[in-house]
């Protein structure tokens, strides 16, 4: 009886439906691959087995080099973005000086910057990472700034009348904890964008990385490899978002969100 109950708790309708849709999607893929020529839609088996065997020697190195670009660019850009937003909130002269610049760079489609960066710096690691730095910076400077602006005045006033007598204390004890949910939301967006841009940047002249695998496979009309590269990219991005979500849950236990 107990085992039955546990099984019932585990197999909720929600989980059954979720599993059903995934299985259906793979099945549809499988059936399509039998009808459509493999150059357009190769079957799941060839994609994973075939590509894995082919790319095995460079797989680890590709993943590492893509991850390195993403992590380095994302970290530099995010930290810079948060710091600049705090500096702007700290001092109104800094704010008045930087506000128009940020409004100016905010709408730039970052991918459009790739040729310009290559023109300036040449092919190589720097422009690729710089693109990711730029995108993460813009996302975090904007979201952090908005978040600081939205801290309720009543919380700031309460802090002042409870003894937070200096700006530093107000920042440390009120603004910083109040905006962590928004900062983490910004980090989620920036991390996703970082993978997007790593792919785009690696299409141009990279000698290593998942983007290189994709563009290389495309040149040989090896569709298996293209799909395999896409799969690995999304796997990494998904794992990154899981990691961020894990920290989000631990840090932001106080927010009023519904359990998903």
């Amino acid at each position, binding site marked *: 009886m107990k085992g039955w109950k546990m099984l019932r708790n585990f197999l909720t309708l929600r989980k059954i439906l979720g599993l059903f849709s995934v299985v259906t999607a793979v099945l549809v893929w499988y059936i399509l691959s039998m009808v459509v020529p493999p150059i357009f839609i190769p079957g799941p088996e060839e994609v994973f087995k075939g590509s894995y065997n082919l790319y095995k020697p460079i797989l680890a190195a590709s993943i590492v080099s893509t991850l390195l670009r993403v992590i380095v660019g994302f970290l530099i850009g995010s930290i810079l973005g948060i710091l600049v937003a705090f500096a702007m909130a700290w001092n109104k002269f800094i704010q008045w000086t930087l506000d128009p610049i940020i409004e100016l760079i905010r709408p730039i489609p970052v991918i459009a910057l790739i040729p310009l960066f290559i023109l300036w710096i040449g092919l190589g690691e720097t422009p690729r990472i710089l693109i990711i730095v730029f995108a993460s910076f813009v996302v975090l400077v904007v979201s952090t700034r908005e978040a600081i602006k939205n801290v309720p005045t*009543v919380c700031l006033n309460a802090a002042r*009348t*409870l*003894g937070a*007598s200096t700006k530093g204390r107000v920042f440390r*004890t*009120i603004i910083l*904890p*109040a905006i962590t949910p928004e900062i983490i939301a910004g980090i989620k967006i920036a991390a996703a964008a970082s993978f997007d841009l790593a792919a785009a940047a690696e299409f141009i002249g990279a000698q290593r990385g998942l983007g290189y695998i994709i563009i290389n496979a495309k040149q040989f009309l090896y569709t298996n490899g293209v799909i395999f590269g896409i799969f690995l990219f999304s796997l990494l991005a998904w794992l990154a978002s899981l990691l961020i979500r894990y920290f989000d849950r631990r840090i932001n236990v*106080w927010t009023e969100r519904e359990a998903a």
Partner: protein
Amino acid sequence: MQAPSLRREVKIKVRNLDMVYRGRSPQRGDVAALQQVNFDVYENEIATIIGPSGCGKTTLLFLIAGLLEPTDGEILVDGERVVGSSSQRAVVFQQDAVFPWLTVFGNIEYGLKLKGTPFSERKKIVSHYIDLVGLSEFEDAYPKELSGGMRKRVDIARCYAINPAILLMDEPFGSLDVFTKERMQKELLRIWRTERKTICFVTHDIEEALFISQRVIILSARPGIVRRVIQVPFSENRDLSLRTTNKFQELRRELWQEIAVGEDAHERVENAT
């Protein structure tokens, strides 16, 4: 028992207070919120400030807190002029001001931590006030898990914990439903009887003013001036049934007339000009 306020020490002195909000543009002009406001609040009494909406009650409280600066005049607390905010003048705000990222314990601990009180002592003080406001089972709860009334208790405990010279309350129960509001008024009286404090309480609710305070300071409509100060003759041990007594209702009518008639006269003047 009459409140022997005349023999008590003056805790808050408000002298010739003027507050003018400068217009943002020449067309909009300046708004005089308070004009020549004078009154005293005695040590360990609860004094309410009441008046029609827009009469500058909240402005007055923010001035006493030091969150705003008066255009003219001065405020003295314990004989010292108020300049800027300080933990000597804690405020329970109209809106929910409990910090959502801190637990009940963390919220009440907040001011003590800033003061640099060592942890062992902090823990003692916090537990004491959590008990006093009746939230001992919710020490580790986050504000999102609490009802509106409970959050107000946290807010009151948080202010009490830092032991301020005076406690300022700006329509603290205004957003609560009637029953919770009445319960909170009783609670506040109980807490205040247990640990005396000078409380300056802003409200637009006549019954609330009569129920909780020793004196009611009536402000007129904008610009706010002190129209009258009424001594509330009830004993300190008040029960909700007090509201149904004749004396209470009589005073209620008196206050209502004072405020409503003032409003009327004000409107007549406005219409005439």
